[in-house]
């Protein structure tokens, strides 16, 4: 038999002005099951809470209803008070007679009658409340970071410096990502590799970081605090422990003319190679598709000249399983290309620019490699025929902001890097003239607008507001046909080189990785954050965080900020050995579940798993649903969906709700 305590708060005058609180306490006090009913001026105050605690102990109350303000205000306060008096906090409910009653109804009779109804309703509900013990989820204090660009590197260093273990997985043979390809970075014109390589070396040397390069994520299982990730370490054909990084193998390799992806295919590399001289780790990889040994079975020069004997043609791909508690996704971006796309592709190519077949029409990253001192031309800006370009046309918004090409968003970084390109060009070729066709100049960051103005005022770049409609070859020149909207005329420029500021897109395979992780992505394959404004580094899937351009186009300062933010979230998760959660989670009544998994399909958090029920001999009886209490967010959509009424949300059971309806 319940012994419910009812406490009606006056809230000073806020409630008692329009609700006769004494009468409410009296009327509710006559309900069966109510053992104690009183009113008090300020229930949330110290004396108010003490009154509550004293009554629980003296009156041996089994449940409590506090009729006062909105539970969104003080439910936690009263549940804590009740818990300290020895009662399970979920046996305490609040009745909202302020925001929903006294403040919105002036007529005392009506307001009081409504208050009696509301409190009575909560009394009947609380009779069906069950003891709910707090849920604890153990946390493995190790973090996985997918992607070794600046975002992954920053997050790895932050988490490792805090004393936690980090596993960093990178698809390419070296970490560094796209930032390692850049020449100088805006708005400071810092040499990109100079600021980045110290961080790369820190990652390699850090005692808390385990680096897996030339590796990919194969499988992700588990949930927050308890992930098991299978990593495929692709065969480098070189033993990482034996290799000293001397580089003799690369100089002796007979295959020297393989286009180097790092140099945007402008530079060449051998079959056994490191992508760039500052690579971390400085261990080469054999490109088995182009290596003579793997194609014909003859050669093996690298193995012969290798002093430590590190070259191993028999090496196989390996699978490693790592147990981690949190995952940070930092897979970055790739650039849009203007080439012809398959027919049903949502993204279109630029036929008006010759689908990329006109020589010396390049993208921004290729220009970076030309400008880079360690690039294929030693930092000289040269055409494909080796001549210096005297007129370069830069075209903004290629692919971006172009609904008809399939990409509606702005890629954010191109206005700034194009201004930077005009400066680099002017610094290297003093009599060169840069023209920029643009729509808007989007330069909002710190020192960004000043940087952009510098390219016009000091570096003599000519900015033409208008779009380009066509590029075609004329002799060894490229004719650019565009419009100058400010002057209201059509313009034609005979350029020696055209640089396109192409759109920033997520990496190829981003959607497949998201499906492995169980995280959401948008129609462009950018990963979705849990809340656009208030939770920009978390996914809806608990325990998985986002950093960098994989979430949306961004520049280096923002990427570093976001990486540190994701690291902070991981550190919050790791701050305790056990993660505590509110026990408002769903539970499956296995006797009734038929395994239709309608609940699993609709759960937005992926909290429902399949569980086998076996008999004593080990034979499979049936497969039922199981709710992971560490992941369930407590919405109850599963319960309303279940056709057999076999799943129940603790705290909002059918009995509790029907009790409320019947009380009215």
């Amino acid at each position, binding site marked *: 038999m319940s012994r419910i305590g009812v406490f009606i708060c006056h809230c000073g005058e806020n409630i008692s002005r329009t609700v006769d609180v004494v009468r409410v306490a009296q009327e509710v006090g006559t309900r069966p099951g109510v053992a104690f009913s009183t009113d008090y001026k300020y229930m949330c105050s110290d004396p108010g809470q003490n009154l509550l605690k004293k009554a629980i102990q003296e009156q041996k109350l089994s449940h409590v209803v506090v009729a006062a303000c*909105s*539970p*969104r205000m003080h439910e936690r306060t009263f549940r804590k008070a009740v818990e300290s008096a020895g009662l399970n906090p979920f046996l305490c409910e609040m009745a*909202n007679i*302020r*925001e*929903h*009653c006294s*403040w*919105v*109804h*002036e*007529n005392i009779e*009506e*307001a009081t*009658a*409504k208050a009696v*109804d*509301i409190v009575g*309703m909560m009394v009947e509900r609380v009779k069906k409340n069950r003891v709910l013990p707090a849920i604890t989820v153990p946390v493995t204090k190790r973090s996985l970071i997918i992607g070794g660009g600046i975002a992954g590197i920053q997050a790895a260093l932050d988490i490792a410096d805090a004393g936690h273990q980090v596993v960093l997985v990178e698809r390419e043979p070296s970490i560094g990502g796209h930032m390692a390809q850049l020449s100088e970075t805006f708005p400071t014109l810092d040499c990109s590799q100079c600021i980045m390589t110290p961080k790369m070396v820190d990652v390699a040397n850090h005692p808390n970081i385990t680096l897996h390069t030339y590796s990919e994520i194969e499988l992700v299982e588990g949930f927050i605090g308890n992930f098991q990730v299978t990593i495929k370490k692709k065969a480098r054909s070189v033993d990482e422990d034996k290799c000293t990084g001397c580089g003799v193998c690369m100089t002796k390799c007979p295959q020297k003319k393989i286009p180097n992806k790092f140099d945007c295919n402008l530079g060449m590399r051998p079959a056994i190679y490191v992508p760039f001289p500052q690579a971390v780790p400085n261990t080469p990889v054999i490109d088995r598709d182009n290596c003579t040994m793997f194609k014909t079975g003859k050669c093996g020069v690298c193995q012969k000249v290798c002093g430590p004997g590190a070259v191993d043609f028999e090496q196989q791909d390996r699978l490693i399983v790592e147990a981690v508690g949190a995952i940070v996704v930092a897979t970055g971006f790739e650039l849009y290309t203007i080439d012809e796309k398959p027919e049903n592709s949502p993204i279109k190519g630029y036929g008006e620019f010759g689908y990329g077949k006109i020589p010396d029409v390049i993208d921004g990253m290729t220009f970076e490699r030309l400008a880079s001192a360690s690039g294929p031309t030693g930092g000289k800006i040269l055409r494909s025929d080796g001549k210096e370009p005297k007129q370069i046309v830069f075209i903004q918004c290629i692919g971006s902001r172009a609904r008809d090409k399939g990409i509606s968003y702005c890629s954010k970084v191109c206005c700034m890097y194009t201004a930077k390109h005009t400066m680099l060009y002017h610094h290297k070729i003093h009599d060169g003239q840069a023209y920029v066709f643009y729509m808007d100049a989007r330069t909002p960051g710190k020192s960004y607008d000043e940087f952009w103005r510098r390219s016009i005022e000091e570096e003599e770049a000519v900015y033409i507001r208008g779009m380009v409609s066509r590029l075609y070859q004329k002799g060894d020149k490229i004719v650019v046909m565009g419009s100058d909207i400010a002057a209201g005329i059509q313009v034609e420029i005979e350029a020696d080189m055209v640089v396109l500021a192409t759109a920033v897109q997520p990496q190829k395979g981003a959607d497949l990785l998201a499906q492995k992780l169980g995280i959401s992505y948008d129609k462009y394959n950018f990963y979705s954050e849990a809340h656009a404004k208030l939770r920009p580094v978390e996914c*809806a899937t608990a325990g998985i965080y986002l950093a960098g351009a994989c979430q949306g186009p961004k520049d280096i300062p923002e990427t570093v900020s976001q990486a540190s933010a994701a690291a902070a979230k991981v550190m919050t998760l790791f701050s305790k050995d056990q993660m505590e959660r509110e026990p*408002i989670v769903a539970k499956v009544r296995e006797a009734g579940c038929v395994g239709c998994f309608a609940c699993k399909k*609709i759960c*937005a*958090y992926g909290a429902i798993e399949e569980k086998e029920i076996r008999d004593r001999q080990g034979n499979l009886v049936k497969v039922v649903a199981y709710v992971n209490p560490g992941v369930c*967010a*407590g*919405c*109850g*959509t599963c*319960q*309303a*969906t279940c056709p057999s009424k076999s799943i129940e*949300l603790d705290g*909002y059971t*059918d009995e509790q*709700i*029907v009790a*409320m*309806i*019947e009380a*009215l």
Partner: protein
Amino acid sequence: MHPEKQKHDFEPKIIAFVCTWCTYAGADLAGTSRMQYPANVRVLKFPCTGRIDPVFILKAFQQGADGVLVSGCHPGDCHYIAGNFHARRRFAAFRKLLEFVGVDLNRLEFSWVSAAEGGKWVEIVTNLTEKVRAMGPMTEFKELALEEQWSGVINTSELQEAYNSI
């Protein structure tokens, strides 16, 4: 300044099923802003409209509600990501069933009220209350209950015959 309360013959009973994060918060905002509205509505709090089983609506009508309101987050803004989409689909089908059964759909209202829309909450509650007031009390379920209820007294000849044959 209290407007003269108009005396009505019939005070409808309106039951509202709302989600914690949007509509309940919107109703709280209406309270904080001291907006006034008719005192006929009783609010039941759910974590999400996705939790609302259509059976609860039927139960509410059975228990004597004259009008029922279901309100949640705007599509796309669900705190639990997609619960309100499931609710929307569920209730689109349920409305057809209610119509078939003979419940006047004007007594049932679905709305999206965000945590910032205190005014919209007041408007919806007021409109529904006045609409249901004009329709009068819902008697269908009460009549049905009366038909099915058996007082326990054998007061007709058919009942006497049936009893004798046992």
